[in-house]
């Protein structure tokens, strides 16, 4: 018998894990996207959606604090461009420290993903 009450709870839990995974990988995603050159916030958001056909999507409210953290940590440098009229636009690009961080995180991610794939391929041993 299916306990209906537990279904939404499970669903919540699943989303929770998804959220955690996304949060952990956001810095890597942003550094990777910026490695292809300077971009402003909206470009980064839309590029991410396009490149992953919408399966990886972030809101502005999630992305911008991550960019701010990377900026404070010195991994990303910023440049303000003031148009003739209107609001100044903020451009982000990788610094040398950012490139090194990107390489480190990429390596870490690949090692982790390989280990997980290997683990999940194994049949459970019966004792």
């Amino acid at each position, binding site marked *: 018998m299916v306990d209906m009450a537990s279904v939404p709870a499970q669903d919540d839990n699943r989303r929770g894990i998804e959220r955690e995974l996304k949060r952990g990988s956001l810095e890597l995603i942003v550094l990777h996207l910026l490695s292809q050159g300077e971009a402003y*916030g*909206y470009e980064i958001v839309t590029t991410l959606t396009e490149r992953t056909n919408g399966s990886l999507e972030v809101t*502005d*409210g999630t992305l*911008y*604090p991550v960019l*701010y953290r990377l900026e404070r940590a010195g991994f990303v440098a910023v440049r303000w461009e003031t148009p003739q009229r*209107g609001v100044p636009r*903020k451009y982000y690009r990788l610094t040398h420290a950012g490139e090194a961080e990107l390489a480190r995180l990429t390596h870490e991610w690949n090692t982790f993903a390989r280990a997980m794939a290997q683990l999940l391929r194994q049949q459970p041993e019966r004792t």
Partner: protein
Amino acid sequence: MSLEQSYIDRVIARLPREATLREQVAMEVRSHIAERVEHGQSVEQALQQLGDPVTLAESYLAAVPLIPVSFGRRAAAKLLDALAYVAVCAPIVGLVSYRFQFVFGMLVGGVLLALGAFYPLFAEYRYGKTLGKHWLGLRVVRESGGRISFGQSVVRQLPLFLEVFWIDVLFALFTEKHQRAFEILSKTRVVLAMENHS
């Protein structure tokens, strides 16, 4: 007031009263809203993307590390507060005693002392620091990094009024984040001021 400005104000209200941080975040949020508007979206849509202003403010604050400070530095700030207070009050008490009677001087001194006990409560709520903390580069924040509420400021000062100040202070020597018992209770911390971050 425009929708955009009232949203930005709500984000800013949650940040500590440090002008540079507030300006940075306000300018940044404004520019990101403008990006979406320039791509043909409405301000409402842009704000929806940014989400709840309190959550956004706390996410920005999470990017600013909270650097703990030593017990000695905090004690020094407290001492400076006391010295500054004496420097202000002593001439007044002296003048009153000299001009009228000694007993009046003592009376005025007592009133000033009682008022002085309330000084950290208002200063920390209003400015996030007292004079002594300002001189030593310290600030008072919520554990999330946000600005403290008036209630939190009151709870921080309770041990003085309950006359358990010294016991409370001892906690700061042994707790993980060097918090006094009433700081743990009020969920506040004393950390390094942002302008002193390297």
